[in-house]
């Protein structure tokens, strides 16, 4: 899953896929803006065929949090 997430994330941040780690913080380490974060979540929604609920995103701070969220949504 991390590979797929990296592939989508590099559309929004000027980094190499390898720079994106599970413990990377979205804002502080990757420099993601709030709008880019939302757009990216829209891409994950399509890619992983999940329904993202905007109100649930406040606790997502790292790449690992995104992975956990996607897994949770896929299980639902």
């Amino acid at each position, binding site marked *: 899953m991390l590979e797929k997430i990296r592939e989508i994330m590099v559309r929004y941040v000027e980094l190499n896929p390898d720079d994106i780690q599970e413990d990377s913080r979205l804002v*502080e380490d990757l*420099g993601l803006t709030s709008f880019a974060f939302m*757009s990216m979540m829209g891409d994950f929604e399509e890619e992983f065929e999940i329904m993202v609920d905007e109100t649930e995103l406040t606790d997502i701070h790292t790449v690992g949090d995104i992975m956990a969220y996607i897994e949770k949504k896929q299980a639902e």
Partner: protein
Amino acid sequence: MKTSELHTIQDLLVQSAAERPDKVYLREKAGREIAEKTFGKLLDDARRISAFLERQSEGKVHAGLVGTSGIAYITALMGTVINGDLAVPIDPQLSNEEIADNLNRADVTVLFYDKRFAAFADGIASLCPGITAAVCLQPEEGRRSIDDLIAEEAPAELKSVDPQSCACILYTSGTTGKSKGVMLSHANLIDNATCCDNEGSDRDVLLSVLPIHHAYCLTCDVLLSMRYGATLCINDSPMRLVQNIKLFQPTMMLFVPLIAETIYRRIMAEKKRNPLIPMKLIGRTVFGRELRVIFCGGAYLAPEITEAYAKMGIPLLQGYGMTECSPRITSSSEADPSTGTDVGRVVKNCSVKIEDGEILVKSPSVMLGYYKNEEATREMFTSDGWLKTGDLGYVKDERIYITGRRKNLIILSNGENVSPEELENRFAGSEWMSEVLVYSEDEQITAEVYPFPEFANKAEALFRKKVDEINKAVPPQRRIVRLRLRDKEFEKTTSKKVKRIQPEKGELLK
């Protein structure tokens, strides 16, 4: 529509409904369907909401709106303003305490809320004792909803509305910390919605992506599309902008630089993977077949972004303004585009002059003042009535060029203004810290701290902890991203204030 006959928002809605009663004005996604509302139905529904508000108070009702843009939101807003009541759209990303504070400071007595704020509305009696009625924007079991009002009320008789009366209070970040309520009259908003010509027609479809509590969205998405008889589609979430462009096939959109930059980056990533695809084809894939133009304002836009959009065949036209000016001061059009370095031409009825490098404005779009804040209002104007924008710039060939900011506001690329003092004040009570300065560095909010020397060893950990605490309390776009720690006091002015621009910076914490 004869713009000379428009004086109030009531005139605007009544005329558009008379000219095109059955034309679809609003469209939005509703599950798998698309919900629509015509100009005629909007006027009828708005009059029913006016009737409800009329019964709430003998005087002018101040109605707060907490939620994101949508058909119900715009209906409630129109119902409030067309009969002379006052709308207070609030930023839904604020904390509940800040929302309550904004509602209280604007003397709101009726609340329209998105169902997401149901728990907030349930606790409203203790947070906002002045609020006597709350109406949910969506139908919800056990709650009074806007649909109930529309079903129960008969359309109100339309009263004459004074064009100089206040139609809206919009909050904007102040330089001294607390946000200020900008009072915009009907005349202000109508002037600004009619200050340019030939921007659109009734064949246009707009996709509204900006937050509706911003003047730019209110005037240029909502009122402008109404003026031209165009259709306004609502982007239900920033997550789905690209999907919604495909769905609604807009001809025009209003962006802030943040949105233009994000899409630009995404496109360039695609281009890197497939260098042979022509930019025009990428443009058509992302923006659809119909898109003619994007207007962009609210913050600095880098010229390379404008160039990249031009390569995709999409003019990205810049304008400049501020909430206090309803908001447009300059604009550009397809026939007279901004060049990438300027922000367009001064709009009709607006006068601009430069004093000590600062851009000053006089126009019928200039606000009535800040609500219940005479001192702040006075400070915004020169003795002969020119509004001080706080922006530095110059005028050449009737075009405005911005060179910097006089006032100490951080303008983020989404057009949001952040007051450094407001963030600095949040450090108050940190016994380990002597001084703090918040500023923007590489477009990132940066906090720099000088700790008391006796705390030097523990300062970094305490600093990080404090920033985490602050970041949890503020909306995502106002979070502190960069931290700098210094071992020397900040340089001061002669009046012993910390200089906003420091010759040396502290160490960057990774």
